[in-house]
């Protein structure tokens, strides 16, 4: 009998799966639960020409946009919620150095459902009159084969790689969704089910027995997962529901720094290029600050 294969790797292993030019989907929602440890490592590694395909994006795209890693973003939203517009994303768009392809929010979800179902398009009948149609040339008109109604074909998300941050996973790649969760967390699941290369960073790697005790919550089974990385506080400064709150002070510092390109450069020099890796980043933020964010919930 041979042992079951471990899919455990490092954040560097994750980034090695995401070469320049990758079409990348990043888990999380707005400024919540993004796999920030991987995002920072992408910047350290100097990745270029990435396309981010998303649903509701936030600081993860803003950071990559500011660092010059992006060629294109396809999404319904890039913003920082209560912290306002995404300053670096905004600057890149206004300067014309970044392309954005706009979708409505529901269609941005549906595009990942199309990928999950291997559909070459998702049908839609309600975009008439919007400037989504004016500017998004990837969406094509067609006629319903049964009713003759005018419709639009929306392209699937089809990411090359999906990277998400989870609360818990096992070494084989089984990923747990917490029992008590909100809607955004389920979008990570849809993303992961529609891609052949799925990277999961997790707050904790749990035992096989723990997985079996939570079998009803294993929403991403092992065979869907390519790589599992243990990354405690891996979403910082974003929150992870049931584990820690958002680091509002860090966000405020980020916003203030991002008022200018120079200020942003000083921010990434300090928080991205300064620390050699994720653990060094956490040490820089400091245990006192991190633990002050703690939330308690069961799986």
């Amino acid at each position, binding site marked *: 009998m041979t042992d079951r294969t471990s899919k455990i790797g490092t954040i560097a292993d994750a980034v090695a799966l995401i070469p320049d030019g990758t079409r990348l989907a990043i888990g999380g929602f707005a400024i919540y639960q993004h796999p920030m440890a991987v995002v920072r490592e992408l910047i350290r590694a100097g990745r270029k020409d990435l396309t981010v395909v998303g649903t509701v994006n936030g600081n993860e795209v803003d950071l990559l946009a500011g660092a010059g890693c992006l060629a294109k973003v396809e999404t319904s939203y890039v913003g920082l919620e209560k912290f306002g517009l995404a300053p670096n994303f905004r600057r890149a768009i*206004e300067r014309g150095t970044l392309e954005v392809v*706009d979708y*409505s929010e529901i269609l941005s979800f549906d595009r990942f459902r199309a990928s999950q179902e291997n559909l070459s398009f998702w049908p839609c009948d309600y975009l008439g009159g919007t*400037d989504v149609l004016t500017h998004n040339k990837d969406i094509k008109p067609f006629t319903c084969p049964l009713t003759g109604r005018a419709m639009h074909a929306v392209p699937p998300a089809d990411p090359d790689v999906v990277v998400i941050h989870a609360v818990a996973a096992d070494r084989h790649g089984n990923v747990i969704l917490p029992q008590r969760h909100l*809607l955004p967390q*389920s979008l990570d699941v849809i993303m992961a089910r529609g891609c052949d290369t799925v990277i999961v960073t997790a707050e904790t790697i749990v035992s096989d027995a723990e997985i079996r005790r939570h079998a009803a919550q294993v929403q991403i089974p092992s065979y869907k997962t390519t790589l599992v990385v243990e990354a405690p506080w891996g979403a910082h400064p974003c*929150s992870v529901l049931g584990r820690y709150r958002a680091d509002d002070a860090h966000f405020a510092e980020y916003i203030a720094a991002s008022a200018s390109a120079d200020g942003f450069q000083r921010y990434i020099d300090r928080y991205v290029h300064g620390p050699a890796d994720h653990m060094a980043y956490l040490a820089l933020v400091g245990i006192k600050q991190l633990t002050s964010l703690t939330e308690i*919930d069961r799986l």
Partner: protein
Amino acid sequence: MSDHSKSPTDAPSIAEIITVNLARSFKNGEVGFTGLVTGGAAALYGTSMPLAAMSLAQAMHAPDLTILLAGWSHNPDLRSLDVMPDSEFDAVLRDLPCEAQMISYPGQWAIKRGDIDFGFSSGVQVDAVGNVNTVCVGDYRKPKVRLVGPILLPEHMTLFGREYVMMPHHARRNFVRRVDYVSGVGYPGGMEGRAKLGLTHGGPEWVVTPKCIFDFDKRVGSIRLKSIHHGASLSDINENHDFGLTFAQAETTPMPTAEELDLLRNHVDPKGVLLGRR
């Protein structure tokens, strides 16, 4: 008078006047959808007044109305809140008692079937036919300001039965002749124009501001001044839009009754979590 006193004889605030008028416009059995907008006036107009209005309607004439908060919580027990949830992904929202929780998409509310009777949204620009813009100011390819993106606006303005566009500030730059990007579609060419675009459902009903309520002549597809809030004037309105039309008259926005104010202050929002402490 202390911060906390809420005598029904106190004059109603603008927020209370708007809330009561919204509440009266909801029908029993409808499903109303509001996002979770955070921060100051945006939160008040985008989330708190809609929630208070739906709660008030439930307490008055619409006991079967369903409140959908953040597309997730069905009929949340708002009176149990000590503070509004901070975001669509925080523990306050998760822990808010309610009747049903939509933990995956697609879920309980079939948005494309038209389950949602009315919704609330906002934008940086609204124009004279009711289009709403959340994407950019200036040219799309080289914008003066890049905003957040279309988000759920296309759905709000077509899949929902009707839309209340909630504008927390009434400034000239927000009320334009033609938006720079149509995120959500109003009535270009009137109802006939919408039908030509394949839109057989929904559209903006009111545009609500701190000064007034606009509605639409849906046949011709033109914004109208429906009523002016107590304390605002016609010139206040006409000076603060660029619709390319001038409003000559309008009624005053109807005031709450004593019963409505009492319910709002003492039943719907006894802690002032939604509309603030008076």
